[in-house]
């Protein structure tokens, strides 16, 4: 067995019956692999990690890994994570969401979690579509793209999850594609150790529901597209608006290290208890 596979096996649940739910060519497994490598690299124990997820394909990730895992309701993963982190700040709370979860139904919670700067590590697996329900458009489906609910092309403008989260005051915001495994490992590692609210958006292909409707003949075509069009954020800013439209900016959008809400709350509690 390859060394990497062996490492990942140490973190999988062996009582859970496989196979997993992901389609051939899905990018979610790559993100989970990267998460496990980052957790291992940071020397975190399985017991201290709570992996929280919402609903959708990304929501099925926690059941396979041997952490404390919570599979919540659609779009509300961050609210559960907020409760867990505030209740026990010692825990390392990781939230996995899809684009529908994070930015469509749960957009309110994402902007507020970022504003509060609560100590969470958030991974948003953005595949630009509702995969599990059969390929409906989401708030990140690019303008003009096809889905089962936009059979004549998406007429609405899409959200840029990373830019929004950055604007809301998150400590650390970064983006990578699944074709950039090393970059993804680095970004997730930072997101695991940095205080406050950390978000890594990963662009992951969904050929089954998005690719087939949008002129990508095979899964490989989607991966090739991602490889070709990923541009570091520094270079992306210099591109012309037309070229920006076809590019995916990757890298670190913002990086601060302010104390998280849970730390500030502990300090407040100590202060007022000292005064009385």
């Amino acid at each position, binding site marked *: 067995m390859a060394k990497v596979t062996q490492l990942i096996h140490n973190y999988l649940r062996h009582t*859970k019956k496989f196979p997993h739910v992901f389609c051939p060519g899905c990018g979610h497994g790559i993100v989970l692999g990267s998460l496990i490598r980052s957790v291992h690299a940071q020397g975190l124990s399985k017991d201290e990690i*709570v992996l929280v997820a919402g609903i959708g394909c990304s929501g099925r990730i926690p059941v396979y890994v041997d952490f404390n895992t919570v599979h919540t309701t659609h779009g509300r993963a961050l609210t559960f994570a907020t409760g*867990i982190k505030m209740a026990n700040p010692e825990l390392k709370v990781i939230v996995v969401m899809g684009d529908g979860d994070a930015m469509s139904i749960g957009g309110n919670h994402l902007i507020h979690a970022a504003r509060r700067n609560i100590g969470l590590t958030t991974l948003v697996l953005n595949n630009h579509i509702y995969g599990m329900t059969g390929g409906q458009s989401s708030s990140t489906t690019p303008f003009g793209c096809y889905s089962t609910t936009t059979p004549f092309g998406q007429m609405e403008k899409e959200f840029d999850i990373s830019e929004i989260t950055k604007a809301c005051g998150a400590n650390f915001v970064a983006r990578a594609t699944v074709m950039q495994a090393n970059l993804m490992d680095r970004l997730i590692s930072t997101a695991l150790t940095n205080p406050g609210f950390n978000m890594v958006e990963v662009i992951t292909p969904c050929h089954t529901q998005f690719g087939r409707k949008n002129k990508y003949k095979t899964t490989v075509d989607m991966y090739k597209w991602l490889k070709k069009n990923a541009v570091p954020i520094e270079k992306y800013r210099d591109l012309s608006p037309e070229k920006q439209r076809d590019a995916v900016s990757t890298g670190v959008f913002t990086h601060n290290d302010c104390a998280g809400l849970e730390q500030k709350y502990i300090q407040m509690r100590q202060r007022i208890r000292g005064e009385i």
Partner: protein
Amino acid sequence: MATKNKKKKEKEIFALGNEAVVEGALLAGCNFYAGYPITPSTEIAEEMARRLPLLEEGVFIQMEDEIASLGSVIGASLAGRKAMTATSGPGFSLMQEHIGYACITETPLVLVNVMRAGPSTGMPTSPAQGDVQQARWGTHGDHPIIVLSAGDVQECLEMTVTAFNFSEKYRTPVILLLDEVTAHTREKITIPDPSDLYIYSRLLPSMPPEWYLPFEDNMRGVSAMPPLGSGYRYHVTGLTHDDHGYPTSKPREVESFINRIFRKIDQFFYDIQIVEEIYCQDATSCIIAYGSVGRSAELAVQMARDQGEKAGLLKLKTLFPFPRPAVEKMLRQCASVLVPEMNMGQISREVKRVNSGQSKVNTLNRIDGQIITPAEILKKLLKG
């Protein structure tokens, strides 16, 4: 110890119903509150915001909406806290999805709903009892739940303690229904000495982690619940799950799971059923009431007795599971039963359901945002 003659530390305070809820919650060991302001429940959040940071581990957080409030309460409860939230009308509607999640994941929590006149925004500062059936059936799917009610300020304190005990004992969300009148009445109450109270906390596993099954069936139907991060790693999901917590759709596993979560409440029915019988012994006519209406009914019964009428009052403090045996007893005993309530007949419907022709069930409904007065109840009662 009996030999130690410790002086009781009872305290008398002048408090709002909402403030009494906070006192009760703190006595029960609540140390986490997440909420969103809404009239007429807001004082609970305000009081919690002042009190909880004074506790060593206390956490108060104001969330962005009611959905998020109940979400983080569930999260905190999974992490081992005794957690609660409070809301009213529209907020209660928003919380329905997460009530179902707490039911299926068997997460203990207390939800206080101060009922105001509805539907929709309705009359925010007027009382009603329109959320009774919503509390029972609001979330989708067939589910067991415990719904309690309180009619005066002292009861607000006592029933909050009871709500926490039930939630921890049976691993279930418990809904405490107040109405605007109860929540905003200020009167003298006694805060009991903590050592006089029976406080229940959830069962923790005694076996090593590798033997632990988070949703295993046993005699009680309630398995031990370790906090997240304590070494017992397991999966929590809103999907129907097997005893490991892993999603399942096998008919045999699903059936035994759903049956168990019903059974764990049903088989302890006599522990959960709380009613108060006033002059019921020799009553020939009876009032069945709950919440602030119960208080008016108490005076109405007194007035009827003064006039020589053999009236009785059955005050319901547990609304669901519906206290059928206590109600049936009165239906057998009395020729007529009166159910006054501030809605179109949500509990009288339950009374009629268990009646099966034994007695005449009269109703008295008010939906104009006004309380039901003792005189009104008396008039209706004497009419038979």
